[in-house]
């Protein structure tokens, strides 16, 4: 379906689509007021679950991915019970500790082949799959956004105590989103494993999380469109920084983050920023006349 795209561009598209799934898994939690840093851990769980099942137990790839989703959701819910007692920055750092335990654990046990990772994973995941999956996810995100579920999540994010006073079951919402977030991260991990054929623990390190966080916050957390656009934008940007062949790649990347935060502290799609932009553009014609 997407074979007409040149191989390298298709590779970039695939990477971007998987990043989008990861970012959305982070965003859905954040929309419920949960700043969780466990995403990389769940992605690793998903990648290894599917990779091991498919390579060692000869499961078909789709089944392996489904198993990854199931394991991700189950683990997220069972970790969620204790971890969701934490609040704010403690939740962020506690979930980070959780992710570290998972990833370092994988790097140090036998059946995962330790730090060397797994190679020779069947690669059946095509661009078509990824596009379909991302489309479904974004559709669901939009449905949530437009329904009373989205309103309830926003209420929880803005003020969980008041939300509870209006009959919103804060705990149930948070458990559900934690589970969904875990499942999505695990799915992204599995898809990635079946795209590259090789996985190793170090690809799920802190760096991955940092990148995802910047996509989310630069895009803005009010609507899924912001983080999605930011993910695409940063991918294009990264490509061009690389082609510039500069050692200063990270410097430019970092300065873009700083500048964006100074211009739009709540992200590029936040109301505060778009309203400011609107004012600027409305003023333009006045100047011309």
């Amino acid at each position: 379906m997407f074979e007409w795209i040149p191989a390298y561009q298709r590779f970039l598209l695939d990477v971007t689509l998987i990043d989008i799934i990861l970012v959305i898994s982070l965003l859905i939690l954040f929309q419920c007021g949960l700043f969780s840093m466990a995403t990389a851990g769940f992605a690793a769980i998903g990648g290894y679950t599917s990779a091991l099942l498919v390579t060692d137990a000869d499961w078909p790839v789709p089944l392996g991915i489904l198993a990854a989703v199931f394991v991700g959701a189950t683990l997220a819910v069972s970790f969620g019970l204790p971890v969701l007692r934490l609040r704010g920055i403690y939740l962020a750092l506690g979930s980070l500790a959780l992710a570290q335990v998972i990833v370092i654990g994988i790097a140090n046990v036998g059946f995962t082949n330790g730090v060397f990772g797994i190679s020779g994973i069947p690669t059946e995941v095509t661009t078509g799959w990824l596009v379909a999956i991302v489309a479904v996810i974004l559709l669901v995100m939009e449905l949530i956004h437009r329904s009373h579920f989205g309103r309830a999540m926003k209420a929880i994010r803005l003020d969980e105590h008041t939300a509870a006073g209006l009959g919103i079951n804060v705990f149930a919402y948070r458990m559900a989103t934690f589970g969904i977030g875990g499942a999505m991260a695990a799915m992204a991990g599995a898809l990635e494993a079946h795209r590259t054929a090789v996985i190793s623990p170090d690809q799920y390190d802190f760096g991955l999380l940092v990148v995802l966080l910047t996509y989310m916050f630069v895009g803005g957390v009010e609507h899924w469109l912001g983080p999605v656009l930011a993910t695409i934008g940063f991918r294009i940007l990264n490509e061009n920084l690389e082609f510039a062949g500069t050692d200063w790649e990270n410097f430019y990347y970092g300065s873009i983050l700083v500048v964006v935060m100074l211009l739009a502290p709540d992200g590029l799609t936040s109301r505060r920023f778009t309203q400011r932009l609107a004012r600027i553009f409305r003023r333009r014609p006045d100047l011309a006349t």
Partner: protein
Amino acid sequence: MTVPTELLQCEGVGRRFGSVTAVDDVTLGVRSGEVLGLIGPNGAGKTTLVNLMSAYLSPTSGEIKFAGESIAGCKPHELARRGIARTYQNVCLFEQSTVLDNVLTGRHLGFQGGLWQLGRKRHREEARERQLAVELIELLGLAEHMNEDVSAMSYGLRRRVEIARALAIEPQLLLLDEPTAGMTRTESDEVGRLIGELRAGGMTVLLIDHNVRLVSETCDRVAVLDWGRVIAIDEPAEVWADERVREAYLGTGESG
């Protein structure tokens, strides 16, 4: 005369924070259909009592019953579902959202449909809830502010939005924590009239307020709290005449 049934009962309710006793052995009933005033100096434990009644806090002693059933172990959202709505002393609105969004969020319990309910059915449900929210907004005289951002609104308007949102859950019992603080005289008179209308419609209301005139005019009975204890509960005129109330709360009458 029949004994009025009590919708909410506090039996020997106490709440300590460390070594501080905020509410001490309070026995108090809110009768069905009445407007009960709760007054007392700041720090007397009024807000703590409301927090206990809405399950934000659990009592360290005693029991609270709503409609005859204990609320022990109840979460705030369950209590909202059972019919208790409240406003907050320091106005807790969802900031950077419109008036309509705030009130619609209060309609959360009214929605039945799942995420997959699509098309006309979903549209109809959304439209129905929106209509209810709009009616409440009009009732509170906020129609012209419907799509304004609450963060930019005045204190008095924000208080009214909060009341509309509390009414949106269609409660049996409404707990109002200082609803007229920060309002002008005309505005608080309007709130008084609204409480009267709600009462006429069968709603039970617990009203905390410092405005003695409002409390006198709108409340069937008044309870006075001092140092966490109920020192008087009776009809307004009787309560104002009580010597202990004059001493603990009214003082020399200057603060009217």
